[in-house]
């Protein structure tokens, strides 16, 4: 009995210490948050100074006159890597020692929920790094973002590409994003398989382009050579869906939205024709069991001979798996003028009502995106390309140079259309319907009706 009591006491102590240990860890989320500036000195002058600092923080600054801002960043290349971002912010801290930047790293699975929850709780970050579909079309449209027109000087407008400038503002010309980097999403083929099937004759390897007819013939040739699965119109979810949209829009010159980005136009004759072509092609199947990421894996391990969800990051990330020659390609078109879906990433500022923080955040953006000594490093951290002409920042890097030829093919950035979340979901559901035998016209009409209803609801 005595021993049981001692054992029970010991176990209770262990549990209590475990809880205490948990409690001591919960104060700071070391993996997620890092104060990347040197603020220890200013906070070590006794309790009074610490209290002053805390008071100051509530008003956007510390006792030493420093301003504390928070940056939440999605994993845009190495902007999701703490070591890289620490280096970038260290540069900023040297230029602006009175601004402290705390960084939180988001992912695309939970990032939106984290930000929306923070907004609901009145704790939105000061700065966020993402693209126009979130900064402009979502949070900007809801009036949560600061107008960045003062950063968009005439000089900036002159330098930044027109397509990028257009994507960073709403239809009223209010800028909610200041861009840093961009890329064009391509497709890719297994060059070895195409060569063995004598299908390289149907494409222009140097330019990375091909016609719709060439695409058909190439797929036929590869399928005839014994490759049962040449490509897959993946539709298991929304991951990588820009690939299927770009493929379908390019084949016969269809569009996803109107030029004003107010209405979905995916049920155009051109798109219906493209979908019917794909549905009837041997070697291409509508696969509801995979998403973009799965397709990339299947292409990288040689199961599929082409990938519709591709860009330079995919080739870098899968370099160890890939045992063949990857040939990045623009999507096939009738006209020979592909319009690629792009990604444009930059900064937005949440309007937290604190002028000092907003001003500090603008200084951060200006430094990262415009400072001559910094901008190249900031862009390179993303592994993508600058939004203005900075020369070949990837001199000597063959892979980046190879992919840079696709940047001029960047098409309309329609992702800023209203009802985007609903439309994305409706898109892969529509492809699933087509894959399971629904009439193409019926399916795309239903998609457009759903998406336009969501766009109308968002506009109200």
């Amino acid at each position, binding site marked *: 009995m005595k021993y049981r009591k001692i054992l029970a006491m010991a176990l209770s102590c262990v549990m209590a210490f475990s809880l205490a240990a948990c409690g001591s860890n919960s104060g700071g989320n070391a993996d997620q948050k890092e104060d990347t500036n040197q603020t220890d000195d200013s906070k070590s002058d006794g309790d009074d100074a610490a209290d002053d600092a805390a008071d100051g923080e509530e008003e956007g600054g510390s006792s030493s006159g420093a301003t504390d801002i928070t940056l939440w960043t999605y994993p845009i290349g190495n902007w999701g890597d703490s070591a890289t971002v620490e280096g970038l912010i260290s540069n900023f801290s040297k230029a602006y020692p009175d601004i402290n930047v705390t960084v939180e790293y988001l992912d695309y699975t939970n990032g939106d929920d984290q930000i*929306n929850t923070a907004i609901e709780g009145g704790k939105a970050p000061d700065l966020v790094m993402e693209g126009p579909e979130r900064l402009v079309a979502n949070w900007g449209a809801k009036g949560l973002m600061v107008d960045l027109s003062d950063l968009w000087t005439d000089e900036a407008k002159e330098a930044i590409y027109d397509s990028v400038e257009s994507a960073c503002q709403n239809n009223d010309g209010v800028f909610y994003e200041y861009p840093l980097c961009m890329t064009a999403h391509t497709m890719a083929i297994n060059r070895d398989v195409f060569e063995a099937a004598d299908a390289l004759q149907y494409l222009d390897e140097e330019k990375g382009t091909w016609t719709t007819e060439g695409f058909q013939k190439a797929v036929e040739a590869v399928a005839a050579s014994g490759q049962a699965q040449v490509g897959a119109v993946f539709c298991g*979810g929304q991951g990588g869906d820009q690939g299927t949209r770009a493929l379908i829009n390019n084949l016969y010159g269809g569009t996803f939205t109107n030029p004003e980005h107010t209405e979905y136009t995916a049920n155009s004759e051109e798109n219906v024709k493209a979908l019917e072509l794909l549905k009837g092609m041997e070697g291409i199947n509508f696969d*509801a069991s995979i998403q973009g990421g799965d397709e990339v894996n299947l292409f990288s391990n040689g*199961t*599929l001979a082409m990938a519709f969800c591709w860009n330079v990051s995919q080739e870098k990330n899968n370099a160890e798996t890939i045992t063949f020659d990857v040939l990045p390609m623009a999507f096939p078109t009738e006209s020979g003028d592909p319009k690629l879906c792009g990604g444009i990433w930059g900064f937005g500022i949440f309007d937290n009502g604190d002028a000092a923080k907003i001003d500090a955040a603008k200084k951060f953006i200006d430094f990262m995106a415009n400072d001559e000594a910094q901008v190249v490093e900031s862009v390179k951290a993303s592994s993508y390309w600058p939004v203005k002409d900075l020369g070949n920042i990837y001199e000597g890097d063959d892979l980046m140079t190879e992919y840079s030829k696709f940047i001029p093919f960047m098409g309309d950035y329609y992702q800023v259309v209203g009802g985007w979340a609903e439309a994305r*979901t409706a898109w892969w559901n529509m492809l*699933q319907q087509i894959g*399971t035998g629904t009439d193409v016209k019926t399916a795309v009409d239903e998609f457009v009706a759903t998406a336009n209803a969501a766009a109308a609801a968002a506009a109200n």
Partner: protein
Amino acid sequence: MTKKNPMSRALVRRETIAGYAFMLPSLIFFLGFVIYPMVQCVFTSFFDSTMNRDDIFIGLDNYKELFQDPIFRGALWNTVIIVVVSVPVVCIFSLWVSSVIYDLKGPVCSAFRCIFYLPVVTGSVAVTVVWKWMFNNYYGIFNYVGTKTGVLDQNINWLGDERFALGCIILILLTTSVGQPIVLYVSALNNVDQSLVEAAEVDGATKMQCFWKIKWPQIMPTTLYILVITTINSFQCFALIQLLTSGGPNHSTDTIMYYIYYNAFKLYRYGYGNAMGVVLAIIIAVLSAVQFKMAKSE
């Protein structure tokens, strides 16, 4: 009339207070994380509620929309299929396995219990990912074995074909659901009064008669518990759908739980999602009550 001892009253009061004090942490947790969200769920279901704007009171509109929504009706139907198939199969299979193994020698019985319980303690994500590989359209083991043995002419897209996807989900659900019932049944069967069984055997009762007339009534409370738990788990099937099919293809694997998640956390339609949650809770409560009633009458 005996005079009450004031000391014992004080003692009772002290013990009562101490009892409530011990209950307080779990009571606070229960109120904060169960009761409050339930009330909030019902309340929000009467609003058009989304992110970053004030809620708008819309009365029963969410409920009206719910029953006109073909995807919700499809999800409800799929959920019913999952429940109707999985609950009896889980109960019968686990009872059969338990009946076979419960009187085996200690280590052998434990080994069987471990084997069947393994999928329960393994993380559901890990289990699902393994199943996803096995069902893979291109290199999955089912297609490989099927085509190599000539059972299949060509690869089947198990999770991407609406004829098979829901069946695959149910199959996986069964493998992860039988572990706990088997452990419970083994324990219940071991607690059956053996003297009654022996007496019946002496009187010439067959094994089946012993089972149905003696063991079955005694394991009825366990059966009831298993029925209720399995029904609730089947109704709340979510992780499998989320990780394997996202409700596709063509909504053929949508369940109510997944559709709630989709509306609440993909489209941020909290009011609509909550209305579905209320309907699901009512369905589960009614079914559980019916199960209790039937078991009681037996």
